[in-house]
Structures are given as C-alpha cells and as structure tokens.
C-alpha cells in the first residue's frame, strides 16, 4: 500500500502524521518505508533522526548549443513552452533554471545543434530510522524543478508493506508528482477557514487524479465545524482527529515523536491506519474512488 499524506494548506501537520503513522506501524511489525517528498523543505528527518547510508545527486538534462551547427533560426525558442531559450541576433541563450527538460528544443532543432548535458539540482539521501526505511530529497537552493527530485526519491523507494509519502503542501506540480501513483491519499487539514479553503482545493486535485482519499483533522477541537460539515456533505470520511493538545506541541518543539512522548496516541494512529485500509479495500472492490459526490458517480 502506497499512502500519500498531503494537504492544500501548509503547516497542518502532514509531517507529524506521516512520521508518527510510520513509527506506529513499524512498532506493530509492519515493514514501512517513509519517503519525504517535500524536497523544498524536508523535515521528517528532524523527527525520525535517520542514519543516512547513501547519498546521490539528482540531475536533469538541459540543452547545450553546439555553436558550429547552430544557424540561429530560432525554432528552439519558439517550441520552448517554458521560455527557457531566447535567440537574439542569431545567438541562442539557454536559461537552465527555467528549463523543464522536456527535450523539445533538441527534438525540433533542424540542425541537430543541441546536445543534452546533466545539471545537478539536488540530492537524495537514503538510510534507516529504527525499523523505518527512510529516503528524502533536497532541492538545491534557487532551483525550481522540485518534481524531478521528488521523482528521484520515489524511484529510490522500494516495495515495503507500507510506503508512506510525505507530500509538499499545495496542489501544484510538485504535489501531483508526489501523490500521483499513490493507492490512497490522506488529506490533512485544520478546522479553520484557511484549512477548509485549501482542503477543497486538495479534494479537487485528488478527485481529478482519481485516487481514493480521506481526511485527517489536526488540532480538531479548535476553530469551527465547517470542515466536518463540508466532509459530511461531500461524503468524505474523516479517519483521524488529533486534538489541540499542548503536550503534542511541546514534543514537536523538542523534535520528539508524538507516539514516543505520549504513547497513548499510538492507538489514534493505529485506528487511523485501520480505517484507511478499510476504505482502500472498499474502493478497490468497488472500483471507484471514495469520497466522490453523487453527481460524479
């Protein structure tokens, strides 16, 4: 089972849930691997404190002009969807930071005047945190192509019993890259107007991707009831509610795992997992996505 933990809004508790779920599953003897795919700000390692055993670069292919073949025709700049190439006075300028490595310039150049060269944009680190297999990616500062690093992290992942993906926040390309091939997505939110607004965006995203999903509410006893009302109306299951417990915040502030500092929460995560497994099985058997509205089928 490949479970992605995602959220529209940042700071809702994805990492807290991803790491504590991973640890509570590992505690019950399940083989778990955690992939921290928030490569712009990975922070699972702060809590899991893995021993890194392997480090490797992540590169993307960028075009380089072979000057003697280039006629300055400008086809490359025309076909570049990402404005990463300009041709001025017959001279080709490549802007590597804007390049998405789509290869269109190389493909369409009538003179075959491009060669692709690797450019390092980040690293991935692999190791172990107790019984948990751990991989995360780090995008270099100033780089934009986080999906490439996320893709590399996921490629490095194995096939354990449970693979947990800690996704970046939002609903844009990096998030899609992180969650797209998940079997199930847990959308984390908080019971505030911001939380609800961004939850709706995230729900739209996972429905578009056709992945079964459920919602987890962090600091569930603050704010208002609108997230619950929304989930009820949309028939979205709430599989996890974590209260606004000051002791959790204190453990977090010390970089401690909730299920270690406050063992009574182990049950909360185990129950959450059981409900996710149920919903996933149900969705697989029904051949449809959990949480779809009636109108959508």
């Amino acid at each position, binding site marked *: 089972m490949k479970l992605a933990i995602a959220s529209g*809004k*940042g700071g809702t508790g994805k990492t807290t849930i991803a790491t504590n779920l991973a640890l509570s599953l590992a505690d019950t003897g399940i083989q778990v691997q955690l992939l921290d795919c928030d490569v712009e700000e990975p922070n699972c390692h702060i809590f899991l404190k893995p021993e890194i055993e392997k480090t490797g670069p992540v590169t993307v292919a960028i075009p380089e002009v072979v000057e003697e073949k280039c006629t300055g025709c400008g086809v490359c700049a025309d076909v570049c969807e990402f404005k990463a190439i300009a041709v001025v006075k017959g001279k080709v300028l490549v802007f590597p930071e*804007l390049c998405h490595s789509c290869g269109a310039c190389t493909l369409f150049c009538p003179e075959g005047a491009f060669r692709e060269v690797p450019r390092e944009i980040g690293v991935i680190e692999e190791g172990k945190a107790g019984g948990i297999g751990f991989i995360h990616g780090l995008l270099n500062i100033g780089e934009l192509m986080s999906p490439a690093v996320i893709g590399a992290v996921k490629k490095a992942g194995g096939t354990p019993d449970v693979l947990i993906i800690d996704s970046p926040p939002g609903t844009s390309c990096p998030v899609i890259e992180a969650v797209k091939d998940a079997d199930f997505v847990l959308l984390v939110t908080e019971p505030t107007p911001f939380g609800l607004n961004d939850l709706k965006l995230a729900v739209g995203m996972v429905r578009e991707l056709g992945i079964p999903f459920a919602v987890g509410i962090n600091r569930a006893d603050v704010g208002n009831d609108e997230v619950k009302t929304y989930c009820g109306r949309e028939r979205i299951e709430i599989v996890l509610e974590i209260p606004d417990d000051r002791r959790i915040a204190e453990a977090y502030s010390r970089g401690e795992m909730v299920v270690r500092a406050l063992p009574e929460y182990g049950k909360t995560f185990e129950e959450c997992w059981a409900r996710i497994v149920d919903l996933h099985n149900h969705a697989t058997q029904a051949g449809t996505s959990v949480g779809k509205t009636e109108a959508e089928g």
Partner: protein
Amino acid sequence: MDMKIAITATGPSLDDQVEPRFGRAPYYLFVDTETMEAEAVQNPNVAAGGGAGIQSAQLVSDRGANVVLTGNCGPNAFQVFGAAGIQIVVGVGGTVRQAVEQFKAGSLKPTDQANVASHHGMGGGMGMGGGRGMGGGRGMGRNRTS
C-alpha cells in the same frame, strides 16, 4: 546618430508614464530619436507564468531597439540585452516623452548590471506556487514564505 529606443510604458502614447517593470510592462514604445515617431506594441508577456523578462527582451531585440529605458531590469532580461548588444537604462521615470528627451540630452546613463532580482515584477496576484506562507501557529505549524 539615429537610434531606436524602446521605453516601457503604462499606455500606448508618448504622454503615458514610464512603466517601472520591464518584463511585464503593458506597452513598449519604440521611439525614433530623430523624428520622435513612436510605435506602441502591446506586451503579450504581461501575465506570462515565467520567463517574461526573457521573452520581452527578445521582443525588444527583434524589433531592432538599440537602447531600452525602463524602471527595473532583472538578470535574465539583462543577459538577453547583453547578447543582443542593447544598452539598458534603469531607474527611469516620468512620461515616455520626458524620458526620451532626457536620453537625447545625455542625462541617462546605461547600467552594466541588473538592478533587481528575478521575479521582481511579479506581484499582486500573479505569483506562482500555492498555499504556503499561512502555516499555522500553536507550535505545530511551520511558516512558509514562498
């Protein structure tokens, strides 16, 4: 010497204001310094997702400008101007007509470097990426600023 100047402008006439942003300026006015004839070109890159500076610099270069007068210019556009041999003057304000007169009088000097960082002109709802920066308090959140 007869020169073609490109000025970033808020509107299509010589009496419109100089637009401070280069890549996302609403208009480029191409002015012949001899005749003061002006041609206004609407900028197709105003709402571009990214690379507006590069595209706009290419546009200005393709139209044969020798000099660009604007408020701010980022590093990518600056690189294109360098390759194209176009001089760029930053920090220009007032109306387009005033800017051209100042340039003709020799009181505007070209810059040798970009004066703002990439994406400087992207504000007011045109930003990229989503949902960060509002991360929750209560000690459990994280504040994201990009």
